[in-house]
């Protein structure tokens, strides 16, 4: 599996750790009977870090973009057949003058 998966799993683990820390923080707040507005600063840093890692993984892991331009080099609609079944050599091209220096682009 690629590096993207590893980064995604690490990001998920960081988020889970942040969630656990927030639960504990909330329990402490319940004891001191204060309002819960937001998690503590280090948990927020952890959340942002986990978010950044997961964002990167979410963009890098799904399949790479493939070109949709029809006439580009990697999208050749016609390609030369590679097997001998379709290759015939006994045709009228024999009568044409041949240039031995011509190269075929495959």
């Amino acid at each position, binding site marked *: 599996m690629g590096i993207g998966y590893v980064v995604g799993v690490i990001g998920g683990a960081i988020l889970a750790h942040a969630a656990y820390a927030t639960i504990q923080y909330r329990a402490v707040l319940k004891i001191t009977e204060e309002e819960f507005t937001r998690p503590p600063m280090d948990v927020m840093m952890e959340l942002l870090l986990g978010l950044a890692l997961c964002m990167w993984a979410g963009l890098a892991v799904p399949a790479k973009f493939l070109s949709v331009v*029809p006439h580009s080099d990697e999208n050749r609609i*016609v390609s030369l057949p590679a097997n001998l079944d379709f290759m015939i050599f006994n045709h009228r091209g024999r009568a044409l003058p041949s240039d031995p220096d011509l190269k075929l682009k495959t």
Partner: protein
Amino acid sequence: MAAAGGVSSDDVPILQAENLTSNVKSIYYSRTFLSIIGGVVAGIWGFTGLMGFVFYFLIMMVASIGLLAKSKFSVQTYFDSWNRILIEGVFGGLMSFVLFWSYPLMMI
């Protein structure tokens, strides 16, 4: 080289359809995953009400920028229109976001 039966540039251009489908699916997976992660973060952070939706659209804008970077800023090579990369999947991901946003809010 031109394939037999190529169209002139006035008509709708032919595109590699299976590559386009694959690219659109890839965007959809990215946006869905990021909606879920954004929902979990919004829930843990304690956003309630409108702030959560603002956070969601912020995440989607960052995702759009990331997708533009992934397509190396030449959208025409990989998609047939700008709408695909900017709008597609945003409202589908909103449902996933709200679902995963509500779980941490309940539990934390």
